[in-house]
């Protein structure tokens, strides 16, 4: 009896879902964008070049945006220090390379350091005020921003440092389009990090526990999930993603200085909001879209010079939010009570 009743219920719901699927505008829009980029790339070499470079830049935004989203989902605040944490870990890599470690050795040691760093920040600074107020956490992250900035400048100096790129200067020709090895490498590293992270959340017990802890901490405790530990691990993972962003952003910026992650944090913030702030996929797509869009606009629209790139990014963000306040991938959840 109950089974029959619920089965028709499911069919109805599935029917409704597939109907909605047909007219869902966002995937359509994205598919359109991909077709546009592919077509444009076959017609114009410069267009193709700018698209690939934009994807590489966007990948960096995606990575940091994803870090912001991870923290937002778990702690419900924007970690304003995320970019500076990434900057600090990039200096760690710089130091390790100075000490003679090969680049990729330094890369992985830095990721480990970043994980510990993120965990310690959560345990020492965030946890004590976690249940008190959201604004307290926000202020702590802002304070952390300034603290890290100062500490890095004190330790390494505020002057410009030079760090080698992990990728060579080779330029490949893919169907006549010159593609920099650096862009491909950046894309590849970010894609691998994101896929690994997705797998962790999707398939492992730790990932399931982290998702449960972020969604409903009280209910998670009742099934034995150690929520505090999960939140600390979450901050650690976010810091690792940030470190990847920092390390991949540095070669494009050519120089290392304490402020180098600040514009990238703003782009990442836009990407995260564009994607819907709660949505990891949204953050990744938002970052890539922003990177490509800004590059193409910079190429083809004369008045968008590098000086007004950032304000222009925010203009786009504003327009998107006016049309769809929950962001591209934010959704009003269907809940049955």
């Amino acid at each position, binding site marked *: *009896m*109950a*089974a029959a009743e*619920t089965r028709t*219920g*499911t069919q109805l*719901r599935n029917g409704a879902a597939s109907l909605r699927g047909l007219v869902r505008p966002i995937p359509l829009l994205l598919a359109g964008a991909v077709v546009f980029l592919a077509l444009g790339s076959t017609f114009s070499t410069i267009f193709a070049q700018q698209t690939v470079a934009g994807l590489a830049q966007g990948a960096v935004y995606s990575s940091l945006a994803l870090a912001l989203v991870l923290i937002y989902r778990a702690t419900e605040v924007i970690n304003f220090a995320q970019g500076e944490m990434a900057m600090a870990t990039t200096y760690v890599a710089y130091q390790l390379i100075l000490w003679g470690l090969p680049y990729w050795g330094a890369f992985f040691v830095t990721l480990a350091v970043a994980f510990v760093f993120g965990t310690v920040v959560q345990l020492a600074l965030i946890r004590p005020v976690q249940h008190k107020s959201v604004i307290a956490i926000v202020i702590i992250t802002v304070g952390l921003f300034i603290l890290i900035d100062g500490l890095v400048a004190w330790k390494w100096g505020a002057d410009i440092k030079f760090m080698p790129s992990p990728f060579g200067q080779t330029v490949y020709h893919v169907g006549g389009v010159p593609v920099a090895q650096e862009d491909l490498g950046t894309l590849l590293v970010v894609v691998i990090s994101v896929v690994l992270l997705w797998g962790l959340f999707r398939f492992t*017990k730790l990932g*399931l*526990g982290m*998702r*449960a802890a972020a*969604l*409903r901490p*009280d*209910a*998670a*405790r*009742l*099934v*034995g*999930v*150690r*929520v505090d530990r999960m939140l600390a691990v979450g901050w650690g993972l976010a810091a690792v993603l940030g470190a990847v962003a920092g390390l991949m952003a540095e070669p494009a910026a050519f120089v290392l200085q304490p402020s180098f992650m600040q514009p990238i944090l703003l782009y990442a913030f836009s990407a995260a909001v564009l994607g819907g702030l709660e949505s990891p996929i949204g953050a990744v797509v938002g970052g890539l879209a922003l990177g490509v869009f800004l590059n193409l606009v910079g190429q083809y629209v004369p008045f968008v010079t590098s000086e007004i790139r950032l304000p222009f990014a925010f203009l786009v963000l504003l327009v998107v939010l006016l049309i769809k306040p929950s962001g591209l991938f934010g959704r009003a*959840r*269907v*809940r*049955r*009570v």
Partner: protein
Amino acid sequence: MTALLELRDVEARYGPVQVLRGVSLEVPEGSVVAVLGANGAGKTTTLRAISNTVRRSGELLFAGEPLGHRGPEAIARLGVAHVPEGRGTFAELTVWENLRLGAYTRPGSSLRSDPGRVLSYFPWLEDRRNQEAGTLSGGEQQMLALARAFVQRPRLLMLDEPSLGLAPVLVTEIFRIIRELNEQEGLTVLVVEQNAHLALQLAQTAYVLEVGRVALSGPSEELAAHESVRRSYLGY
């Protein structure tokens, strides 16, 4: 029968409001015990005191171990599965992920090694395994919560108002499953319920709470025959 769970003079408060004023009760191993009472009598708070999700004091013993300062996670790991009011299912996770969370505290995954056991009680879960739990009906969510608690392989299952907001047919179905879990799996159950009629049929022992104290207790048949219980809770 020895007591699996024992509460002696347990008090609990939300801020300045004292809700439990000295509750003592025993849950024998292998039995079903019901806690009855009007709204605000402290039924839900009793369960929350056991899983330490409310500020409480007094003596709480589970299998001889004091629960004292153990956190909710640790108490779950001792073998107490608490299905809270509102079911505690994760709406955003799939049905199967909810079940995997049940197995969270078990070494390895009891779900992977033995999905048949939970599916024999809840066969429909198989078809719905990839559906988001939030899209299930209220009755289905209650069953999922029950299934998840069962996957936890607890020594004590605590249910808070399993009948709340459900159609009578589903309520009967859920109580049938609870009875089966008790009889076939030997699972000890502590159930809080507004529907005194069903609860007294299911439980061997029952406690009636009134404003944070145990007003009456005893074997279910005796309570069902008791004048004031009949009038206040059974309505005849």
